[in-house]
Each structure stands twice: as structure tokens, then as C-alpha cells.
């Protein structure tokens, strides 16, 4: 990776105070750089701080200490309004439980982030949302409500929503966690392709080694410490399936 990284975490820690007065260390000195168009996967068991790390990356949470540079700009110096604006402009989120807005159609769900955009993106939100849904193969389901869609379709709506503002980083938190293996692979292919097409960086958090193996670089988060790992794709698939590599 050359030039200024898109995302650069330097010695990031995250502590929380527990009700009994003790301190829980969730992240310990995490260093991570992600460049434009790169696909990074972070694996780890439940409760190891993966989501906290993703929230910090997506400007939803702040580190207790350490530095977070977004295109070289220290995020800690940004005020909440600027943080929200950069979150909307630069990041697209894909959640495990899809987090679609109930009662709204697929089109309305995808158009929702554009309500916080400015200029042409705001005024053309319906057209942009429609295009985004067509890109994920749901051009025929624009007016369908989430409850009428399958899990895979719902996640595709969520991906269309994450992509609609043309983010520079897509943050996917267990994007296949609620899907079967085949649908999960299809969704990851879609995410990979969409990220490649748009040149967005993709950070995937997963406990599925086969999903993680699709990334350019892999990390394991254990006890709050992030360490690089290398996953061989066939071996990872075999491990996930419980077969000898």
C-alpha cells in the first residue's frame, strides 16, 4: 500500500467502566491500516471486540486512547457534526441482522441514507436508490417491504443501501451471520464485486473463516489484540465445513 491510507488506527484502545467500578479492556493497542479498494477481514470469537472495532472504524464509537486517522486527518479532532457528516459521506454499513427500516419498501430503505445527503444526491434519491437496487439484482422488488423478502434478499437490500451514497469504506459486521452457507457466499460475492466496482475498501467482520479467506488481508482479534493472519482459502473452506485440508 502506497500513499496515505484511507483508514489508519494507531495503538487504539477501548475501555469501558463496569457497574462494579472495574474496567473492561475491549481493545488493546490495535494498529490497522486499510487502503482504498482493499478487502480486509477480521475474525474472532464472539465477545472479543470485533463489533467495537468496527464501530470505531465507522465513527460510531470513539477510542479511549490511541489515534484514528481518516485519510491522514485525526478523527479525534472532529466535532460530532463533522463526524456524522463523514460517517454518512464515507462509510456504508452492512449489519448481521440487516437492520432494514420496518414498514418501508425496499426502495424507501435504500433511499433513506440519501435523506442525509446534500445537493443532487438528496434531490435524486429515488432514482439513485432504484439504480442501487438494480445493481444488487432487486430491480423488480422496489416496492416490496422487507418482511416479504427472504433473508438473502433483505441482505441485498442492506448492501444496496450501504452502497447508495458511494462510500469509500464498506463496513460489514457478520454480513452472512444470519444466512445459510450458499446464500452467504452469494452475498459476499456481491459485496466483493460491488466494492471492486466502486473502488471502496471493504472491512468484513466474521467468524466464518471461509468468508474471511476471500479478503486480501486477514486479522484475528483475540482478547482485544489484533494480529495479522494468513488464511488459505481452500483450507479455510475445509475448516469451516469440518473437512481435512
Amino acid at each position, binding site marked *: 500500500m502506497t500513499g496515505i491510507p484511507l483508514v489508519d488506527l494507531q495503538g487504539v484502545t477501548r475501555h469501558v467502566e463496569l457497574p462494579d467500578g472495574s474496567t473492561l479492556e475491549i481493545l488493546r493497542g490495535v494498529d490497522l491500516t486499510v487502503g482504498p479498494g482493499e478487502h480486509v477481514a477480521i475474525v474472532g470469537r464472539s465477545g472479543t471486540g470485533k463489533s467495537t472495532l468496527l464501530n470505531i472504524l465507522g465513527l*460510531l464509537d470513539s477510542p479511549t486512547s490511541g489515534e484514528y486517522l481518516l485519510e491522514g486527518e485525526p478523527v479525534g479532532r472532529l466535532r460530532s457534526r463533522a463526524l456524522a457528516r463523514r460517517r454518512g459521506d464515507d462509510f456504508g454499513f452492512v449489519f448481521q441482522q440487516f437492520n432494514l427500516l420496518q414498514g418501508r419498501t425496499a426502495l424507501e430503505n435504500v433511499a433513506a441514507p440519501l435523506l442525509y445527503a446534500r445537493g443532487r444526491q438528496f434531490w435524486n434519491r429515488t432514482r439513485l436508490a432504484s439504480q442501487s437496487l438494480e445493481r444488487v439484482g432487486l430491480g423488480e422488488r422496489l416496492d416490496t417491504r422487507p418482511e416479504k423478502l427472504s433473508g438473502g434478499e433483505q441482505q441485498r437490500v442492506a448492501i444496496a443501501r450501504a452502497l447508495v451514497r458511494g462510500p469509500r469504506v464498506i463496513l460489514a459486521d457478520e454480513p452472512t451471520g444470519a444466512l445459510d452457507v450458499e446464500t452467504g457466499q452469494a452475498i459476499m460475492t456481491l459485496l466483493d464485486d460491488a466494492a471492486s466496482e466502486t473502488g471502496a475498501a471493504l472491512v468484513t467482520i466474521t467468524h466464518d473463516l471461509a468468508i474471511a479467506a476471500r479478503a486480501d488481508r486477514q486479522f484475528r482479534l483475540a482478547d482485544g489484540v489484533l494480529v495479522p493472519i494468513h488464511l488459505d482459502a481452500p483450507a479455510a473452506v475445509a475448516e469451516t465445513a469440518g473437512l481435512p485440508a
Partner: protein
Amino acid sequence: MTGFVGAIVEAWDELRIHKVRVLLALVGVACAVTAITGITAAVTMFGQAMQEQNERMSGRDTTLEAWSMGPTEGAMTAAETDAVVDAVAERHKISYHSVRATMDLAVHGGDSGTYVDWSAVDADSGTITRQDLDAGRWFTESDAERLAPVLVVNQAFLDAYAGGAPVTTHPKVVLEGESPVAATVIGVVPVQWNDEGPRAMMLFDQAVRWFPDRVMADNYRFWVPPELADRFAEVLPRDLAAAGVRFEVQQPMADAVVIDRVLQYLVLGVGGFALLLGGLGLLNIALVTVRYRIREIGIRRSFGATSGRVFFGVLMESVVATTVAGVVGVVIAVAVIKNIPIDRIFGRPLDDLPGFPFDAALVGMACAVGIGALAGLIPAIYAVRVKVIDAIRY
């Protein structure tokens, strides 16, 4: 710009999706706005009806009434007195003033001993006292040129002296006196009260021509601008006295206006209380809803919604909702007010039907928007305080 429009769009979407909940919450607000607007309009109409009734008796707002304080030295005739009053009124540029002179005349025929309530009036008197007629017409200036007198009477007079003939047949009655004359009835006024006896009015100029000794120009009315009433009440008797006629000038009583205002405040108070109750219902539902929507608020924060935008969005939901309810309330009030059977309620149609009180509509709308803002404030503060990460996991 896009932020504001976006918040409105978001609020409207929210209301559209939760329309049943919103409808239920807003019924109270719409009813209260209807009550405030509608009752204020009704009170305005009632006030107008009262005022018109009042004006039929004692003249328009503001009419100064001048009563003769008795003959002066070298007493003037009615015609001379009238000329003096005309001159004073003209000097003060009072466009409308009228005479109402008492008369004593006998009418040929009818039961002996029947008393006729006579008065000599002029054309302006009809304007000042909103004189409406059941049939025929009121006097005009040109009637003074007619050789024989013309009369405007009540139905009792027609029944007693003209056999109840309709006014369209131009019934005639003979007035007795030094020079008996046949007078033509040209109009019929409504009865003032049940069992009212015969009542007749003759044009003042004709009365002084035919019966100069039977007319006393003892009562005048001056229709003046309300803000100048005090000044004229002081100046007119002085000027009239200087011209040789002594009159006492009285201003109308202000009781009706005070009662009208008290009634209006009372209605606004009741409407305001109803609106407050409606607002509390809305607040209750808004609070429950915002808790239910915490996860959605978290998701919206991930889209880049600032805390200000979340606050404004939740507030706007409430404001947009109550604004819509306010509009509905005002429309209902307009529909009700426009269909009130005024004739049946007030006994007669209003001469000057007041327009729909836009002030009341504006007050109703302002209250609706205000109560929406108040009801939305607490949920909006609650929504902003929610931590984004907790909200997404909620």
C-alpha cells in the same frame, strides 16, 4: 435547505407509516382546534347578531342619541329645530344623522280608543337602525317631494286600518287633523314584540308639512366613528345649545361589548384546555413510539444523521402531525360554521354576516403547532440522548 426538507420528508414518511397511531393521537388535537376555531366563529356570529339587534333599537356603533331638554325661550318649531341640527351635523361632517320625532295623529276607521305609536323619521334613520322590512320598502329622500304622505307601518296597523291588505296593493289610510289627508302605505316593518299595537312612521319632512303642530323634533341620532364618540358627545350639545336648542347627548352602553369579550375568553380558555389534553395524549404516544424506534434512530445515525437532525426530525414528526390535525380542525370548523342555520337560531338572517374569523383559525393553527412542538420536545431530547451503538443493538 436539504437538511430542512429532508427532516420534513422524514417526518412525513414516519407519519404515513404509522398513520393509525398518528390518527388516534391527533383526534383530540383536531377536536380541540375545531372547538377553538368553531366556537370563536360562533361567538363572533352571536356577537354580530346581538349587535345588529342592539343597533335596531339604538343605532349603529357608535350612535350618539340626543334628547330634547325641553323648549327654549321663543320655542322653535320642529322644522326650525331640524334645520339647526342639520347645520350642526354638516359643520362636523357627520354623514349620517337622523331625526325621530314624536307625533300624535288619529287615523280614520279602526276601533275607537286604539292607540297608534307614531313617529316621524327620515331616510337616514333606516340606515342607522338597520331597519329591515317584511314587505315593501323604506323611505327615500325623494318621498319628501310626494304630495300625499307615505307611511311605513307594522302589520298590526295594516290589520287595524287597512283590513290587512298587502302592501303591494298600495293600501291607503286617512289621517285626521286640521287638514285630513290620505296616506299610502309603502312598507311593513317586522313586529318588535308579541302583541305589539299599531305602529306607524311618516317621513319627517311630510309630517312637518301636513301636521306642523303635532310634531316634536325631540330625538336625534348621530352615527359617528367610535374613536370620536367622546369628543362629539362633548361638542354636540354645546354647539346645539349655542344654536338655540338644548339637547342632552348620551353614548351607548358598553355592556354588550364586555359580555362578548368575556364569552370569547371563556371559550378560548375551554378550547385551550381541550388542546392541552390532546397534546398530553400526543406526548404519551410520542414517548412510547420513540422508545420503540430506538433501533431505527441508531440506524439513521449510521447513515450520517447528526444529533441535531435526529432532534429536529422527531420534533418535526409531532409538529407536522399537529399541523395536519390543525388544518383538519379548521376545515371542520369552517364546514360547521358555514352550515349553521342562522335564521333558525337567531330568528332572522344577519344583515352583515361576519366572514370566517381568520384570527381564530390562525390562533387554532398556532396552538396546534405549539402543542406539537411541546409534545415532540421530550421524545426528541430522549432520542438524542440514546447512544448510537446501544441503539443499533437495541
